């Protein structure tokens, strides 16, 4: 295929994936036979025109949406074979989501927001607090533990969201236009953090973006158009 994936142990392996939406009598086919392989440790930027299915792809990779046919294997699990509750549990331990509008809980502090994924683990209160502090330290917000989202800038909120995504140490981060709502320099800060997470902590990252400058932070970028990928190798 188009990707240079390690064929033995890919993080993502999609074969002949089909995804349609039905609205009333209309059916739109987003993917009719999508193939994609992404190795562990990769940092991929996914670009493409609006409506080409980038968000839909992330949702399928994260197990919050279902494919119609084909095989989708992520982090060693065939998602098309899991039940809803199995998918929930799988997400808790393997996936970190980062959204364009951060999706923080406004009534919770930064630390409480970051702690949420840990409530799904066996960790005790003290361990959870240590992990939360570590995660907030990684994104440079160790001094913002008790702040509420509305007391922080957009960039800071997105960094809290990144801390939340990495706190339970998932292998795969799925980012949907993580800098879409930020100015250039704030975006650069956030992208640098993602780069560090990929390079130093070995996180596999799939990042949807419209911004070619953001795509520069990735190891490579894929262009999605009319349901298929066209790869453009980047010089790092």
């Amino acid at each position, binding site marked *: 295929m188009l990707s240079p994936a390690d064929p033995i142990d890919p993080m993502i392996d999609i074969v002949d994936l089909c995804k349609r939406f039905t609205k009333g009598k209309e059916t739109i086919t987003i993917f009719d036979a999508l193939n994609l392989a992404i190795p562990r440790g990769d940092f991929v930027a996914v670009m493409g025109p609006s409506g080409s299915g980038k*968000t839909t792809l992330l*949702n399928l990779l*994260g197990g*919050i*949406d279902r494919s119609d046919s084909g095989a989708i294997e992520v982090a060693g699990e065939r998602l098309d074979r899991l039940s*809803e*509750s199995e998918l*929930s*549990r*799988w*997400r*808790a*331990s393997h*996936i970190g*989501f980062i*959204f364009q509008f951060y*999706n923080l*809980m*406004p*009534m*919770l502090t930064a630390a409480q927001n970051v702690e*949420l*994924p840990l*409530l*799904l*683990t*066996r960790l005790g209160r003290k361990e959870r607090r240590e992990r939360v502090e570590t995660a907030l330290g990684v994104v440079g917000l160790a001094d913002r533990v008790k702040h509420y989202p509305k007391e922080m800038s957009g960039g800071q909120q997105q960094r809290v969201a990144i801390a*939340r995504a990495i706190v339970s140490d998932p292998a795969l981060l799925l980012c949907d236009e993580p800098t879409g709502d930020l100015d250039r320099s704030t975006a650069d800060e956030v992208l640098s953090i993602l780069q560090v997470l990929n390079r130093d902590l070995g996180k596999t990252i799939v990042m949807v973006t419209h911004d070619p400058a953001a795509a520069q932070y990735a190891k490579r970028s894929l262009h999605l158009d009319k349901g298929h990928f066209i790869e453009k190798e980047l010089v790092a």
Partner: protein
Amino acid sequence: MRSIILQILAVTAINLKSLPQRLWLSLATVIAVGLVVTVLLAFLSMANGFRRTIADSGAEDIAVVLRSGAVSEINSVVLRDQVRLIEDGPGIARGPDGKPQTSGELYLTVNGIKRSTGTKASLPLRGLGPLGPGLRRGVVITAGRMFNPGTNEIIVGRALGKEFEGFELGQTVTFNSTRWSVVGIFAADGSVFESEIWADLPVLQSLFKRAGSVQTVRARLTSPAAIETLRAYSDNDPRLKLDVMSEAAYFAQQASNTSDLIQKLGWPLAIAMALGSLAGALNTMYSSVAARATEIATLRAIGFGGFSAFVGTLVESLILAAIGGVIGAAATYLVFDGFTASTMGASFSQVVFNFQLTPRLIGQGLLLALAVGLFGGLFPALRAARMPIVAGLYG
């Protein structure tokens, strides 16, 4: 398991912390439930207060004897021989002269004209023996004198005299084509007896052709416990097919018909209102789920289960309803506490009673509130649990 509890706690905390954003709608639900509980508790505490007040006005050491199975004095008959057996029974107090402290009594009805409306109503005319007045609490002649035995004289209860025409002291009234003179007015501690007319038993027996029989026997007991002895005696004698009970028990039984009626009015009204507030609760909770769609979807994307979204929503609904229930109970307590005091002070009525709110009644009110919360939260909670994550995330 521990994780599920942590999830539920977190989701519930998030729901409750976001309540201020839905303040007015939530408040409307709280108030609607509060009103339902207030109405229910007003009726229940009225019924309870009525029953308790009447029962309290009855004495424990006075026995009331009726024909077995008679619902009230009106349809009871006690024969002359039975009266004698009761008078000789155990547990009956005796006076200094050794006579049993009993009073055989007739209970008839005659017509009177109500002052306020000018309409006819039946009035109780009681024939009683010389000891009869003394077997009731607080009977005093407030004007005139006691009737003389063997004459067509009557004394009239204070409440009845106020409410009906023609019972002033010195006037003459006609019952059953016989003329009677009002020679006295009496009070009886505000009890139901103040709404009666009293006459000499033998005179009534002959004029109303009831010679030889009475309808009830009233007796003073040597002690409240003696009622059991007397009842056992009556039950073991085949000649005495009688019901023996204390005056307190008899009053409670009489009051229960009325209090049952009040309760039977109260529950359907409260349930009809509860259905109305249920519609409000459903609306509130569906809006809550809609308002929290992004939060619910985000938590689900993180890995939270649908079950925690379900429980969190249900708990929110139950908490709103419970607050409404508590407010309703408190309102009933406050409003009707004042209500009672002013009624007692302002007017005299034959049955002045307090609305009595007991923990058990409050429990019933809260249960109704929680039922509204449960059913109002159930379907919205199911929607929260089943909401597709993608739809919630991207509106």
